């Protein structure tokens, strides 16, 4: 939202124009034309939410948008305005505490963002001004400035490449920080500015760039540069994404470049892609909110019940106003309706602690601190890249325990994306190297092994195609600058497939030596150097799924080489020898190799003229360039001759299969998205054990549907059939088909693109994933899981906290008399109970880390928010209600006697409340202690510390006559209370009664589990399950009973 307003402010009217004009170096083009400086925003990146000035109002506003905070603010205001039983401090102080803690946390996070912003904004850049290299801060860059960038620096804004230190005006860029692709991409300068590679010469450039207004798509850019040289007519050149250097990308393997800034600051593509720190709400928080509403409802009910009863009770005059307790004149005169309303509000205020004010702050602290544990974890540390886990937002930590679906890319994620040329087929004849370890360079004479030889010419044509049809570049080392024929050729390409193919060709004797002066040089099997003039490159795109080059041989022939996916090539070739190649391709795909088909065609000079014109036209178009180019490409790439096919292997990542298996066992549904051939993908899925041999595959592909008129009908039939199959398997499942199929591991589903578009649903192969085993471990982190628990726990605490208060109303004439002292009301959530639960949620490990990592099945138990389901919630609620009753009525019966002391002295209402409160604090804390399975010194410290603090605080609070208090209600109440043996006995008894159900449940679960274990060990004696360490049931304790038997 902020960004939008910001960019609106910056861009202003240009937005409507649709294009912007940038003067290179901010030099006006002609004297006659008045140079109107267009206003663009500066190059400052703002990712922080607050400034020093607006932090307080803005942060407060944000915080009070949160339902609980807002609720407490309302309560606070009610307390301030209306005569309420408790002073505003009781809710004001906790609210203040919560707001402060959250503000500090958010302020800290924002400070980090400020620092990161500053790092970027204040970094040094060099700008060419008046033919001089001027050092500036990054944020000072204006649109139109010519910027110099050195190797391994990141681009400070979106630049149009003007020239580089290389003669051909190219540079290599890695966009790892933008889209995660770490390979080098080549960017080009327009031909006319290539030579301007010094500060002086670049300053003489008079040019204007017209380009579209900023838009977030990283891969789209349309522009035109008009170059004015020596008062001649302007030369117009088209600009595309290959000319645009994006902010955030890094310059590689190029010493320096000059570029002109076109988009700056918040208008850069990176900034436009930045989603802001969006408020993601985790499922846990959502369910907390849901339960909050339930509690709000209970609160309102309680208040309404009390108000009603109050007026029923007061209908007897001596109850309403006995002689000893008369109302003031003002009270008598107040309207009855108004009185009822204020009474209702008063009851709300009295019971408002049922909604724990500190719950959000505990949850937030837990997440915040928990994220440190994630980043501290050395198991996530990658030795190779020297990076540990990075926590971008702590809002969703616990969601790691709730993952249902894993979507994965195949290439580069499941596989290493390091390709190896395996074999090829030329005219249907298979060529395969016997030993892949043999260095290709030494093999100079022909294919290593050929089962059946193809025509020598065809063979060479095929290999030339491999050498020419690509976008591979040669990296030349600085030391041997210009020596292209060095033995060490390093290929750089955006696609590892191409490198593999070029290397493959090299193994068969054709070596690509790089570009020189627009000529592609290839060394053939006879060690001769062939040169080809590269006329056009029809780049690869994912829609066409092929790429082509048009080259001119030394003899002047014009050839088009095309390579691409079989489905993209076969329809476009004319010869009838497809069948053999096709079979070959299928077989390779079955083996899990990536296949590409290669085709060529000769272009007559006349045709070329036409093609050339069309291509240039399309390239120059400012509007709809993509569509136009696509159409031209489509026209060109027809009637080709199929030469052969290649097979490249993409190796599986280390431990990919193990990870997939673990994910499966954890009950996650893994989906693989891939652009590969279905057979390739399928075999990869088998290789990484996503599909087991027992897996029944449900295929929704063009093959199963068949090319027929009645596609839809057939598809429908299949869908019905599959659903029936799955529903039969899960008779009770009422879920949609989509969910059901992956429910069971034994089913795998394959959908291909064309079928998909039929269903109008975005999906792909059912498949799997890898992030090495790292991801798996994250999922199973205890911290992630356990914070789900504390919410009901804490809410229950507050229910048993407030229930005695409610019951007390029945004994005090519904007069809203608080049972506890204001200090206790205030401190309960902040001091007495918050730390143990925080420590518990951070440190608890119900199950040993090693057990967790070794048995992914345990993950299944926690997904689907198992712990925040209605069942456990009700259980906690009823338990809390029981405890509240015990606290209150236990003390009530205790007070039936004349005296609790051996000297016959009597206690008052504050002692009553203090006894209840003491039992409450001890019970709640000890209950947590009972739940704690993992007692570190921190747990000991906070649990016993909290209790000690409570006792200490009570003595202290009652030990002094506080001058600022209107009433000294608590004076020596606690000490006096402890002087009575009866009170001690009663407190111990009540604590024990309250904990009794909990203890009983633990024992019962143990017995039950044991029975389950017995059944289990009978059924599968050999299963490793029976040997599982003894801590297991402790996890299960909070699950529904059915889940007890794994």
């Amino acid at each position: 939202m902020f960004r939008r307003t910001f960019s609106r402010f910056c861009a202003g009217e240009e937005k409507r124009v649709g294009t912007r004009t940038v003067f290179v170096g901010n030099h006006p083009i002609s004297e006659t034309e008045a140079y109107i400086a267009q206003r663009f925003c500066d190059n400052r990146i703002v990712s922080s939410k607050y400034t020093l000035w607006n932090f307080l109002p803005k942060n407060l506003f944000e915080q009070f948008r949160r339902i609980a905070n807002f609720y407490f603010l309302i309560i606070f205001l009610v307390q301030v305005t209306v005569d309420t039983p408790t002073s505003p401090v009781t809710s004001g102080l906790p609210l203040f505490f919560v707001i402060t803690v959250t503000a500090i946390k958010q302020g800290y996070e924002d400070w980090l963002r400020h620092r990161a912003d500053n790092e970027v904004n204040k970094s040094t850049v060099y700008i060419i001004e008046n033919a001089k290299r001027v050092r500036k801060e990054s944020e000072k860059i204006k649109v139109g400035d010519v910027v110099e960038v050195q190797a391994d620096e990141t681009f400070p804004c979106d630049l149009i490449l003007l020239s580089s230190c290389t003669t051909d005006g190219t540079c290599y860029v890695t966009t790892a920080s933008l889209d995660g692709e770490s390979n080098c991409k080549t960017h080009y300068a327009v031909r006319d500015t290539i030579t301007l590679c010094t500060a002086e010469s670049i300053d003489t450039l008079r040019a204007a760039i017209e380009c579209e207004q900023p838009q977030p798509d990283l891969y789209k850019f349309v522009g035109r540069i008009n170059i004015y040289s020596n008062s001649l007519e302007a030369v117009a050149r088209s600009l595309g994404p290959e000319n645009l250097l994006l902010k955030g990308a890094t310059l590689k393997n190029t010493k320096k470049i000059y570029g002109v800034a076109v988009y700056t600051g918040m208008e850069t593509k990176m900034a436009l892609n930045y989603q802001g720190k969006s408020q993601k709400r985790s499922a846990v928080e959502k369910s907390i909110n849901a339960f909050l509403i339930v509690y709000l409802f209970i609160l309102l009910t309680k208040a309404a019940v009390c108000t009603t009863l109050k007026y029923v009770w007061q209908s007897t005059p001596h109850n309403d106003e006995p002689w000893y307790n008369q109302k003031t004149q003002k009270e008598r005169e107040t309207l009855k309706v108004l009185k009822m309303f204020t009474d209702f509000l008063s009851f709300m205020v009295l019971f408002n602690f049922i909604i724990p004010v500190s719950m959000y702050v505990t949850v937030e602290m837990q997440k915040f601190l928990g994220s440190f544990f994630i980043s501290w974890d050395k198991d996530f540390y990658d030795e190779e890249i020297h990076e540990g886990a990075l926590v971008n937002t702590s809002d969703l930590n616990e969601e790691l325990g709730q993952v249902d679906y894993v979507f994965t890319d195949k290439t580069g994620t499941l596989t290493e994306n390091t390709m190896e040329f395996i074999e090829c087929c030329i005219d249907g004849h298979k060529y395969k190297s016997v030993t892949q370890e043999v260095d290709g360079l030494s093999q100079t004479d022909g294919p290593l092994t050929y089962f059946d030889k193809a025509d020598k010419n065809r063979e060479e044509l095929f290999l030339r195609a491999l050498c020419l049809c690509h976008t591979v570049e040669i990296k030349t080392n600085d030391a041997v600058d210009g020596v292209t024929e060095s033995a060490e050729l390093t290929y750089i390409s955006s696609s590892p497939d191409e490198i593999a193919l070029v290397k493959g060709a090299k193994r068969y004797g054709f070596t690509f030596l790089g570009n020189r002066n627009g000529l592609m040089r290839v060394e053939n099997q006879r060690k001769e150097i062939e040169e080809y003039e590269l006329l056009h490159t029809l780049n690869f795109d994912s829609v066409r799924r092929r790429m082509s080059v048009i080259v001119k041989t030394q003899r002047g022939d014009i050839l088009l080489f095309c390579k691409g996916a079989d489905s993209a090539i076969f329809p476009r070739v004319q010869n009838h020898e497809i069948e053999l190649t096709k079979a070959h391709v299928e077989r390779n795909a079955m083996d899990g190799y990536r296949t590409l088909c290669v085709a060529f065609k000769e272009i007559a000079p006349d045709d070329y003229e036409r093609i050339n014109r069309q291509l240039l036209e399309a390239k120059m178009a400012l509007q709809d360039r993509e569509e136009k180019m696509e159409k031209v490409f489509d026209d060109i790439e027809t009637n080709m001759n199929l030469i052969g096919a290649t097979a490249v292997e993409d190796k599986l990542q280390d431990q990919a299969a193990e990870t997939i298996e673990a994910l499966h066992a954890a009950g996650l549904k893994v989906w693989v998205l891939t652009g590969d051939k279905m057979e390739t993908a399928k075999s990869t899925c088998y290789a990484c054990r996503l599909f087991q041999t027992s897996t029944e595959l449900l295929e929704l592909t063009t093959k199963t549907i068949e090319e027929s008129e009645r596609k839809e009908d057939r598809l429908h039939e299949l869908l019905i059939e599959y659903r029936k199959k799955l529903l039969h398997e899960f008779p009770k499942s009422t879920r949609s088909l989509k969910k059901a199929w992956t429910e069971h591991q034994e089913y795998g589903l394959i959908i291909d693109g064309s079928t998909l578009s039929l269903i109008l649903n975005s999906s792909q192969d059912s498949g799997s994933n890898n992030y090495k085993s790292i991801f798996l471990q994250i999922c199973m982190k205890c911290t992630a899981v356990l914070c789900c628990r504390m919410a009901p726990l804490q809410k229950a605490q507050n229910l048993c906290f407030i229930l005695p208060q409610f019951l007390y109303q029945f004994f005090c004439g519904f007069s809203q008399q608080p049972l506890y002292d204001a200090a206790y009301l205030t401190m309960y959530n902040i001091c007495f109970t918050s730390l143990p639960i925080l420590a518990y949620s951070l440190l608890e490990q119900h199950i040993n880390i090693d057990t967790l990592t070794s048995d992914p099945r345990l993950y299944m138990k926690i997904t689907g928010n198992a712990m925040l389901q209605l069942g456990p919630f009700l259980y906690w609620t009823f338990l809390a209600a029981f405890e509240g009753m015990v606290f209150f009525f236990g003390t009530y019966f205790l007070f039936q006697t004349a005296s609790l002391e051996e000297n016959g002295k009597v206690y008052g209402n504050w002692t009553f409340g203090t006894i209840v409160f003491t039992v409450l604090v001890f019970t709640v804390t000890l209950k947590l202690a009972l739940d704690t399975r993992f007692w570190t010194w921190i747990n000991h410290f906070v649990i016993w510390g909290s209790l000690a603090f409570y006792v200490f605080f009570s003595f202290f609070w009652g030990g002094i006559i506080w001058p600022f208090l209107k009433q000294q209600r608590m004076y020596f109440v606690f000490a006096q209370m402890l002087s009575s043996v009866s009170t001690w006995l009663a407190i111990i008894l009540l604590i024990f009664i309250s904990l009794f159900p909990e203890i009983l449940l633990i024992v019962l679960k143990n017995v039950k589990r044991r029975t389950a274990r017995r059944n289990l060990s009978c059924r599968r004696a050999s299963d490793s399950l029976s040997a599982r360490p003894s801590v297991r049931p402790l996890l299960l304790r909070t699950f529904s009973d059915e889940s007890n038997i794994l």
Partner: protein
Amino acid sequence: MAMNYNAKDEVDGGPPCPPGGTAKTRRPDNTAFKQQRLPAWQPILTAGTVLPTFFIIGLIFIPIGIGIFVTSNNIREIEGNVFMYYGLSNFYQNHRRYVKSRDDSQLNGDPSALLNPSKECEPYRRNEDKPIAPCGAIANSMFNDTLELFLISNESDPTPVPIPLKKKGIAWWTDKNVKFRNPPGGENLEERFKGTTKPVNWLKPVYMLDSDIDNSGFVNEDFIVWMRTAALPTFRKLYRLIERKNDLHPTLPAGRYYLNITYNYPVHSFDGRKRMILSTISWMGGKNPFLGIAYIAIGSISFLLGVVLLVINHKYRNNSNTADITI
């Protein structure tokens, strides 16, 4: 990207560089805390630990319960000091309007609060333009019946012998000595309360509550006891002590007693009742069967459960020889 920050870097401050090492290592510290491998005590609730707990609880609770119960039931016998209580029922001392209607500063002897009582005391704050001392509804409604106990020693002599009732020692020590104080001033208590008026319902002003100056004014123990508001609408308050004279005679020997009540305090208007209770007190206070019964009940349940579980556990153990026993 500028938007991301590495929490580890920021907070950690980076681990100390290894000696001689130049490059800052981003490797997380291998400390027990950060790796969540702090040494921990992991109690495992097994049959072996839970069952004895049940038995022990049973074995401890039942005797305690019996002890309490017996003590509580023996209280009837009038031996040792006897405590005289008055009881009121349906009297809401815990009503919010009532509870807050007092001024503790005034009661603590603060001269300014004496003449200008807190607003909380309304409508018992001022009377005829004079501040009320002590102000508020609680003070105003102080119990003012007088109870006197006489013993008719024998049938032949009908003259009742008054039983000596001790007025002091019925309030909390801290209340009597710290929380409640008379306003400062001269020897004369009346002078110290100058400028104030008595509560509307009182018969006499606060400085005339007792002839003993240490038990008059705000530090009058009857007053202090009344000011400690009761928790429930039916309550008792300590009125007098009857001290045992010597070990030879019971404090209150058997005989006919005669209770003289000077009736000032109206309770019918709010449907209330008055009571007078004479009770001895044991180490655990007055007679109260609740604690004893509860202890016995819980102890028995615990013990019983222990037995049941033991049986189940035993049965199970016999049934399967192979499975491990840990829970």
